[in-house]
């Protein structure tokens, strides 16, 4: 029987091993033949042989099982090896599309203010003089109208120059308190490297009882908002002028490119202007017939935010459906 141990060991394939198994353990196998020899024996001799044969039988079985596992493992490994691929050839990028960076930035802004319990109001693009100018303390002869070169229609309607008319419409149709933002497209007659005739704004308005809304409140929410959008930045308020707010301020953040050291983007000032804001001018409340209220308002350009956050250099490429740009946002 000794030789069969070697035969098991020498087997190189699962198939030959199986043949060996049959030769050993089969009905006509060597073990059966050996056991048959017991017929002519008796007594202690028979017992001794039986014991000897059974020891062999289980030893051979163990040997066989171990070998079988080894060979199967090997065979599987070989089979897998045949399926080998060069994974480095399969590096890929998604076939999916992407959201537009301006719209995605708008989403983030809306998300922030929604979570701060601001309502979202959208309004209409074609506006009238009252909602776009007059009610916002911009009477016809006001020099600040020059700041906003307007698209007019033949019937004296216009394309809104800011999303502020949405605030007027909301106040005209709702009683205070008001807590809202107005995201949307706005239009000015300006077309060069840094201006497009259409761009997007988000404006915010809070109106509550007289004496309750202060400049300090405005500072709080805008500082928090800007850090939400830009990360840890310095925020600076500079007094400014808008016809619809008083006091008014422009808000700067420390330059996100040079961290305030001074670079080309921030014109070496270390600061980037990102927002306008202020306490709502009483004339605005008068125009919408609100009495005994106070409020704050703010407004920002979404393209500017998107360009600063994503470091996009060319404003106009944002309006060209340019896959070169868009595929970077997959």
């Amino acid at each position, binding site marked *: 029987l000794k030789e069969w141990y070697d035969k098991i060991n020498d087997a190189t394939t699962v198939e030959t091993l199986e043949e060996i198994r049959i030769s050993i353990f089969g009905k006509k196998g060597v073990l059966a033949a050996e056991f048959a020899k017991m017929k002519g024996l008796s007594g202690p001799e028979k017992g001794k042989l039986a014991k000897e044969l059974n020891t062999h039988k289980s030893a051979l079985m163990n040997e066989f099982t171990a070998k079988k596992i080894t060979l199967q493992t090997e065979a599987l490994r070989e089979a897998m090896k045949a399926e080998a691929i060069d994974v480095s*050839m399969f590096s890929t990028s998604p076939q999916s599309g*992407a959201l537009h960076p301006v719209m995605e930035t708008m989403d983030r802004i809306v998300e922030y203010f929604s979570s701060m319990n601001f309502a979202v109001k959208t309004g209409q693009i074609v506006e009238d003089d009252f909602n776009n100018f007059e009610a916002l303390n911009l009477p016809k002869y006001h020099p600040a109208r020059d700041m906003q070169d307007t*698209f007019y229609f*033949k019937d004296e309607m216009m394309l809104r120059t800011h999303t502020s008319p949405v605030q007027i419409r909301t106040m005209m149709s709702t009683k205070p308190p008001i807590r809202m933002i107005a995201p949307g497209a706005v239009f000015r007659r300006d077309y060069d490297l840094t201006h497009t005739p259409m761009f997007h704004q988000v404006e915010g308005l809070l109106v509550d009882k007289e004496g309750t809304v202060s400049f300090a409140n405005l500072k709080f929410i805008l500082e928090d908002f800007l850090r939400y959008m830009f990360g840890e930045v310095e925020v600076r308020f500079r007094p400014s002028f808008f016809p619809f707010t008083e006091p008014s301020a422009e808000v700067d953040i420390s330059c996100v490119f040079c961290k305030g050291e001074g670079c080309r983007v921030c014109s070496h000032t270390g600061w980037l202007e990102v927002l306008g804001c202020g306490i709502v001018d009483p004339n605005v409340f008068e125009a919408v017939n609100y009495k005994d209220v*106070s409020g704050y308002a703010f407004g920002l350009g979404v393209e500017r935010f998107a360009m600063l956050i994503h470091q996009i250099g060319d404003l106009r490429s944002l*309006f060209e459906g340019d896959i070169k740009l868009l595929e970077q946002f997959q």
Partner: protein
Amino acid sequence: MIVTRSWLNEWIDLNGITTEEIAKVFNSIGLEVDRLHEYRVPKKIIFGKVLECEKHPDADKLNVCQVDIGSSIRQIVCGASNVRAGLTVAVAVVGAQMPGGLAIKPVKLRGVDSDGMICSAGELGLADTGKGILEIDSSIGEIKLGDEVATNNFFNDDLIEIELTANRGDCLSIRGVARDLSAAFDRPIKEYIVTDNDDKRGIGRVLNLSHEKDLDVNLNYKALDLKGLVIPTIVKLRLAQIEESRESDIENMLLYITQSTGVILRAYDHSFFCSDDEKMAKVILCENEDGFACIKGKNSASIVGIVQDDASKVQESECTILLEASYIPPEIISRKMSETKIESGPMFYKTSRGSEPELDAGLSYCIDMIEAHSASKTYSGKIELTNSSVEKIVIVTKQEIDEIIGAKIDKFVVANILKNLGFDTSKSSTDNFVITVPQFRHDIVNKQDIVEEIVRMVGIDNIPSKPFILTEDNRLEDNYFEYKKRSIFRHRGANNGFYESVHFVFDEKKTLNSYGFATTKEELELLNPIVQTLDTLRPTLLTGLLKAASQNVKNGYSSVRLFEIGSVFTPEREESYNMAFIFSGDKENENLANAGKPAKVDFAYFVQKISDVIGAVTLREFKTSHTLSHDYQSAEVLMNDTVVGELFRVHPNVEKEYDLDVTFMCELDFSKIPYALKIAQKTSKYQASFKDLSLVMPKEMSYEKVKNVIQNTDITNLVRFYPVDKYSDEALAENMSLSVRFVLQSTEKTLEEEDITSAMDSILEALKSELGIGLR
């Protein structure tokens, strides 16, 4: 508005304050700093005096000068046309390194030794004062020959350009800016002392002022005999710094004074107002046919605050002139101007934003300057016409100030700020500020304007941030849900392979009309489009996507997939949202899986993509109203039995026009895309059975018909059915074979073979009787 440190210093003592600090304060008080520039004259440039000046023997345009530089006399060859003996000049001596890079060395110019250079302002790195060398006079203070030019603060000056907001006309002068700084630094402003001369000739001898109508205008006149006016160095230098100049010396002088004081000044030729042989000028304030306040003699001389007629300007350098200071409230002038647009002169910007009403000081400053730099003689006295203005008073309480700011501001701080800004608070009581607003602050009308002044000067950065305490409210309303819906479908578009794009809502009318799109009605059309190609509101998103796809193909993209959700407009200019898609060229990017040869997009693939984005769709044969679509591959898109839009292959001619490979597009009315919360149907526990029928039907028969017949059979357990294969060959001739797969399932049991057979039989029967078609 451009200011310089030395010029500001004439109105407020800036000693001990650095220019950086001034710039920082400007920003914090709302005068935004646009530009900061330091003029620094290099070393070894010193004051000198030209003692002699002779023509160069061998060069027409050169002069040989002997120049006293204090320690010695140098010979310098100079090419400037204005060099002459007696001039005080800036001399670059040997060893000087000029800002332009030139190093001064002893040279021979056409055989004559030259030991240095006489400099122009430009060569010194200063604002360019024009042709020739810089002529220096006593207006820049006392100088000693040989002293470094850099030690003089008028030359080594700092320039700050500030951007003024539209309300701050009062800061359009150096004095006005100084007034704001005075409040910020709590240092007094230097007032100009008004004096009168004692010339025996009174102005009454040469000027008679009258008015035809009471107009809201203040006027103040002085008369003088102008003679030998020389523009001083300081004026030349500063006008160069602010980059402005006028036609004549007298006009330049007035420009300078206006810039400094804010008072609007004009000079008239006295004789313009005189009748023949008379010495008396008859000046009349009147209203012209357009309603503007005018100054006239026999003819119109000027429109107050707007423009001066050339004929009334001073043409001679020696003659009698009238100097006029005027003030007209800015709101009157801008309202008038917005009603009737007329041509305006260079001062209009200032008058429309608010000029300085203190006319006496400006006029007096002007006379003093002219007298100091000419041999002119001024008539004594002045003639004025003043429209008594109503005092503007604003009352605000300490509590109101604190509430608007959101912090407690000390009462004395408030009072001091207001005083320094020129407000009169003397009528105030303990808790009420009663504030008289100076005329130059026409922008201040209410409490909040006053608070803004306090906020500016206190500094917003010094106000602590405080969260607003609000009452909880559900603010998720329709507009929010609409925004959310757009957001969800935008994400689905992007996740299914489309890039989101945003285009202008403008488009070209001509192009749109040529494709059959109806554009905005003529009477509602855009009045002032920015360019011809963006001259109307878009009625569709399709053209924008086509252009973008075309550009992307030019950029080398063989698979272009874009979508947009945006506003479109009807001819009545009603706005609504559409969602549109374009899919052009390859189905996917080239990669190993498609062996670098991705298949082209086809109808089935495109519809599947659209459905992946918006949900289950049904298509119906349809002719689009525009001509962008393929004649035989266009469909109406239905969702829940409602038409939501159209879907088509782009017409081959349009594909060609835009250089596009096979291209499909889809445009949907966004509001019609279903967005309701889903209701789950009861699902069956029993197995579904599938059965295919291959129908032979005429090629031109629409599947729509087959579908309708099958639907009308109303078979209880028919869950759904759909075509899975289409086949035609010669044997079938005009017919084709269409395999339709039926899915049957009961909620009560597993269907038996006979249930299925009977269902199929009723379908076949219906098809046979109604359409005359049957199995292959």
